[in-house]
């Protein structure tokens, strides 16, 4: 978020915040680090600095370089009055004013304010405000500047630095770290509802139209609650023509009421709707409100890309932001057209588009975590909390525990799950390493032996396997064969085995699964490696669990596992019995 931009565009009593790194040297004037302005010191006369840096400011004061007058005065509520008598701020002590923050303003930061209007350039007078409480809004390596024009007295009433609840949305490391210190900007929003025939489709539950209505209700609620001065209007795009149901109003009841008894029919006229919406927004009562159109588009877009772009440019020129919810019909070029429209409108990332494919999640649930719902500021207050709640709610809870209800339990469960996973992975890895080590030894001891002998041995092993389980049913036998084959194949015969497997896979799903497993493992692991891995029942079970469409409790799967286990042990014995033979030779 470009806080500067946000603040500049809110018309009355502007307070610029700039965030700059805390200067490394205590003697360095932090204002010099602002590259944006040639002569920034004229601009900034209020500072918010992290509380940890008060010591540094104290040092500066002693160095008398920055001329900070740290003084803990009593609260000077009437800043205007105090300013009037303070021409030029020659007297450091007089010039320094103390600003007492409103109760709602409680970052862990100190506020510095320059006193004398004309002498600000020389940085003669600064005063340190009382330390503010609680909630940190500033990272420890950033300073916060709040400025007013040097010529403007600082009216106490306009100290709208009041941090609302939405502060603290930190951005990436090294970037500006700000919460929305400015009060959330007022918005006037027109919501365009698609009530064309295409809305009868039921691919969004319960129907496209109903899903859309739910989403609209939610957005209206969020918009009106995030700022009391926000207004929302609703209009329909189809039916007998584009119709404005409610002009922008802050009365949520009015908005919701108009949604009832809407008729579905005819085709949506996107171009007309957007232009009518823009007209409705243009005549808003409060000119400070930012204009925004939210269009739900579930029907095909029949307009040309060019036409849409022209409309988009017009919106941009009139400072209207556009959000599009693309759902329902998915023509070949509908997303492309809408993207073109958005990119024509978009100015400093204020317009968004969301594509919502049909699926299990309700339309409103998908929207709730998007910028359309949360707004540019990353969502403050209601919107953010609702979004968070819905996001977790919609996702379905891990371990059947609602993390919102019992976060500690959820965390504990997750941690233990992760630990267990790590443990199992470590075991498997260890087993693999051991077996490969053992194999190397094997290989070294039998390196002199004829390679033909080794192949013969393997073949006999496989034959033994088959003899050992003569009474298994057909499926299991097939499985065993397949597994044996997959284990046998070292470097040779992979292609043949694959073909055989493919044939087998057609017959039985479980078999196919087993084959898949064996193929996956055969790549890197050796025979004994496989058996060791399969010996670890918990590991195999966890693998089976993770495979789609597999029920680990299925009897045939259980049988398979049991047989695998048995086989692994036998192979071990065989390994041992083979070794003496090798040595004899």
């Amino acid at each position, binding site marked *: 978020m*470009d806080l500067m931009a946000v603040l*500049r565009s809110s*018309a009355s009593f502007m307070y610029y915040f700039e965030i700059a790194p805390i200067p490394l040297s205590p003697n360095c004037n932090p204002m010099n680090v602002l590259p944006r302005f040639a002569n920034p010191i004229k*601009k900034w006369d209020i500072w918010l600095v992290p509380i940890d840096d008060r010591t540094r400011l104290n040092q500066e004061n002693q160095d008398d370089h920055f001329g900070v007058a740290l003084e803990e005065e009593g609260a000077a509520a009437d800043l205007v009055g105090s300013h009037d008598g303070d021409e030029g701020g020659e007297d450091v002590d007089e010039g320094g004013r103390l600003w007492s923050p409103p109760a709602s303003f409680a970052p862990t930061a100190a506020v510095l304010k320059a006193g004398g209007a004309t002498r600000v350039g020389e940085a003669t007078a600064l005063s340190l405000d009382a330390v503010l409480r609680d909630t940190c809004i500033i990272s420890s390596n950033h300073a916060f500047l709040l400025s007013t024009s040097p010529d403007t007295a600082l009216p106490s009433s306009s100290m709208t630095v009041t941090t609302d609840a939405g502060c603290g949305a930190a951005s990436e490391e090294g970037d500006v770290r700000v919460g929305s210190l400015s009060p959330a900007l007022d918005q006037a929003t027109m919501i365009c509802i698609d009530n064309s025939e295409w809305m009868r489709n039921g691919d969004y539950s319960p129907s496209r139209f109903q899903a859309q209505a739910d989403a609209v209700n939610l957005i209206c609620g969020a918009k009106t609650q995030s700022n009391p001065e926000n207004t929302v209007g609703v209009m329909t795009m189809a039916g007998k023509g584009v119709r404005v149901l409610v002009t922008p109003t802050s009365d949520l009841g009015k908005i919701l009421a108009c949604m009832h008894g809407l008729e579905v029919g005819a085709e949506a006229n996107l171009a007309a709707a957007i232009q009518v919406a823009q007209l409705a927004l243009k005549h808003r009562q409060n000119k*400070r409100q930012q204009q925004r159109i939210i269009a739900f588009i579930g029907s095909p877009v029949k307009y040309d890309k060019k036409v849409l772009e022209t409309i988009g440019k017009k919106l941009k020129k009139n*400072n209207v932001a556009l959000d599009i919810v693309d759902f329902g019909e998915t023509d070949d070029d509908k997303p492309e057209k809408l993207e073109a429209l958005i990119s024509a409108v978009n100015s400093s990332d*204020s317009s968004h588009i969301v594509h919502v494919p049909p699926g299990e999640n309700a339309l409103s649930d998908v929207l709730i975590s998007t910028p359309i719902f949360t707004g540019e500021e990353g969502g403050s207050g209601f919107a953010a909390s609702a979004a968070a709640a819905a996001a977790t709610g919609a996702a379905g809870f891990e371990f059947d525990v609602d993390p919102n209800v019992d976060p500690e339990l959820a965390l504990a469960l997750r941690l233990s799950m992760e630990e267990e996973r790590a443990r199992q992975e470590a075991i498997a890895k260890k087993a693999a390493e051991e077996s490969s080590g053992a194999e190397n030894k094997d290989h070294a001891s039998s390196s002199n032996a004829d390679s033909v002998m080794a192949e013969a041995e393997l073949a006999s092993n496989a034959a033994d396997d088959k003899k050992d389980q003569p009474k298994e049913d057909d499926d299991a036998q097939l499985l065993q064969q397949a597994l044996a084959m997959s284990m046998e194949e070292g470097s040779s015969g992979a292609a043949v085995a694959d073909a055989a497997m493919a044939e087998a896979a057609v017959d039985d799903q479980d078999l196919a699964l087993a084959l898949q497993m064996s193929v996956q493992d055969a790549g890197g692991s050796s025979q004994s490696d496989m058996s060791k891995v399969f010996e670890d029942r918990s590991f195999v079970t966890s693998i089976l669990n993770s495979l789609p469409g597999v029920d680990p409790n299925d009897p045939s799967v259980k049988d398979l596992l049991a047989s695998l286990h048995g086989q692994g042990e036998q192979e071990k014995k065989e390994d041992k019995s083979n070794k003496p033979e090798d040595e004899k030779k």
Partner: protein
Amino acid sequence: MAAATNAAAAAAAAPAPAPATPVPRGQVDLVDFIDWSGVECLNQDPAHSIVNALKQGYRDDEGLYLASDSDEQLLIHIPFMQVVKLHSALFKGPEEDGPKTIKLFCNKEHMGFSNVNDYPPSDSLDLSSNHLSESKPMQLKYVKFQNVRSLTIFIEDNQSGSDVSKILKIALYGTTVDTTNMKDLKKIEEH
């Protein structure tokens, strides 16, 4: 009204405006009577908003300017807190991207780019690059601006014909019609 007292206080506390711009005799800078909550600028670049050109302090900073966004046109609506008479206007901008054709409209609410040609302008200015650099107030048709509640400024094009128009400063000079603020006015005139 909080804004009104603020503005008055600001006027009282503020030192003389920048020395480079002489206020026409008998007139005052109307910046203190602007109703900021109603100020609107269409097609402004959000990063370079109208405040940079209009507001006391910011407008005198060379680094801050108002810029257009999607094309070169700008439409600025400035309502006043009381009725004023407008005597002259000052536009300062870069020689290249500064405004050229400027149309001024009186008391036209809800103007947009679409209906800007529907009304005859109260006055129109054709600025040369000299005007922009020397920052001298341009005198307006005084009779047309005797009862101004709001002023709409339409910047039609710029000097170089480029896509982005830039304005460093807009200053409006005139007198207030109502006498409620005479005390403050005197104070300013002393400077």
